[in-house]
């Protein structure tokens, strides 16, 4: 089975304290730790497990710049057979539809049986997989947390629905699936693995190489544009305890007891 996994390099929100830049139009990116988007990593692992069982190849693709090569190499160190960087100034400012349009053009250059994305990235969009499927007229399922390959170009899949219940379906290939975190246990990637793929040439594709009309991608085509960033205030905010640890512990226990939690 030929599997394409669309991945993205994102600031690791578990490792970073997000702050705004002085202009307020972006977050402060200088000190950020970047990594593979977590759900995308699960998607690559799932692809690798499928080809380990039934054969085939896994290609990882990203739309971005030179810096994003790092996540392609990381996923190739995990075992992905090919990495592809789609890069062009014209792509800058693309909205979800723009990115999906770029990926569609790439998919149509070749043949893939199955296309995977992570369920969402750090922007919480949860959109590229569903859009790409609609553009390609492929069946789609989101929040996928199990995949079984059936005979006759079909998969049996489950989606994670409310309460952690699993909604099982059968889906025809080729299709697009967005993968939920926790579907598998992504393998560890060591420094040795990274070194082995450090010098592998990563092919790149530009807008013209993909035959893309520049009016369909980038900022000019975007129907959706981010205007600014600001720090949210959802509620009144917690009363932060500023005592030393011992004082804070005493206070916590006092509060827990007062709220009927300790008897």
């Amino acid at each position, binding site marked *: 089975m030929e599997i394409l996994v669309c991945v993205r390099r994102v600031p690791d*929100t578990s490792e*970073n*304290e*997000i702050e705004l830049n002085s202009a307020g139009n972006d*977050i402060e990116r200088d000190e950020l730790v970047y990594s593979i988007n977590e759900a995308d990593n699960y998607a690559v692992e799932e692809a690798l497990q499928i080809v380990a069982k039934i054969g085939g190849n896994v290609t990882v693709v990203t739309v971005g710049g030179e810096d994003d090569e790092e996540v392609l190499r990381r996923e190739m160190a995990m075992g992905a057979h090919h990495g592809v960087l789609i890069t062009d100034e014209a792509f800058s400012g693309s*909205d*979800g*539809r723009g990115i999906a349009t770029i990926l569609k053009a790439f998919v149509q250059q070749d043949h893939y049986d199955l296309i995977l994305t992570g369920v969402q990235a*750090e922007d*919480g969009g*949860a*959109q590229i*997989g*569903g*859009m790409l499927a*609609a*553009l390609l007229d492929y*069946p*789609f399922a*989101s*929040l996928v947390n199990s995949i079984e390959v059936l005979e006759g170009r079909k998969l049996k899949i*489950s989606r*994670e*629905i*409310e*309460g*952690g*219940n699993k909604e*099982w*379906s*059968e*889906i*025809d290939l080729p*299709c697009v699936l967005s993968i939920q*975190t*926790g579907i598998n246990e992504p393998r560890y990637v060591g420094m040795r693995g990274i070194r082995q793929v450090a010098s592998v040439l990563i092919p790149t594709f530009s807008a013209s190489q993909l035959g893309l009309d520049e009016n369909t991608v980038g900022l000019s085509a975007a*129907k*959706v*544009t*981010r*205007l*600014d*960033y*600001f720090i*949210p205030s*959802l509620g009144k905010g*917690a*009363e*932060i*305890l500023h005592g030393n*640890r011992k004082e*804070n*512990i005493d206070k916590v*226990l006092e*509060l*827990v007891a007062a*709220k*009927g*939690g*300790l008897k």
Partner: protein
Amino acid sequence: MARIFAYIAHKGGIAADSAFELAAAAHKINATASPTAILTGWGADLDAACNALGASYPEVWKIANEALAYPNAELVRKALLKVLPSDSIVLVAHEHFGIDLAPGLSIKMNSAFVSDVLDIAGLEAAAIKVVRQEFGGQASTHVRCDISSGAVLTIRPGAFKAAETSAGHGLLVDKSAEIGLLAAGRRYLETVVAEAGDVDITKYNVLVSIGRGIQEKDNVAIALELADAMGAAVSCSRPVVDAKWMEKSRQVGSSGKTVKPKVYLACGISGAFQHLAGIKGSPFLIAINKNPKAPIFQVADVGIVDDILEFLPELTNKVRELRGAAAK
């Protein structure tokens, strides 16, 4: 101004709670617009849900089709495309079905798409300005959405207060005849209910809930010891289950359990909305997190900026000390 539609999920003849939140979102987009509820399904369940919605929507569109008896996003999309005006603004709840339906719907309608909308910040001639979050809720953004050729928006559950006022006229429009035959490349088989697990976290007054900040499987014991000393149970957020450090039955959130404790100790939990969605009944929420920017501090009652791996064992010792003294 384009017409606003709200796609309403329903089950067992009852419309989802989000029906009223979508009405509130529609009202916030344009207070003078009359939003239309649109429901798909089959049989008595669909009729019951449509009738009930007459109280909160001026108009309800019903699409009855046997193929839609179970909501399959691809079939629902095909049905909606047959009846929706092309410049419609379509609101869908940002939950598992909306995530399945909405992005593809926007492509097929050739309209703009914004997911997980928290608020509406303004309406212009050909655009709406919405608020959403990025980076796990650590930063918010204003997003401009061009609605000149329609828009599909998914609305975060709980973000809009359900509309109190009754705007309904109960006008029911049956659109079923416009649908025709429906077929999809994905076919529903069955739903398998999640396993119950060894501990029922919904039964406890106090939950010691751990998140990614617990860092590794061996550290889960720190939380178990504290819970044991307090007579509490340990629950967790999604990353802990994803990492296979705890069973799925311990997970609090929209894809896990809904809990109503008196006290909720959020330990190393960032506070993603999917997690908060599982905490009901307004418990006293104490958050301990070493990241002072963690969104959990915005919703907690009391916050402590500290490392849970050091804080929790000391807290456990103190609880044991007090309990020991009380026992004497």
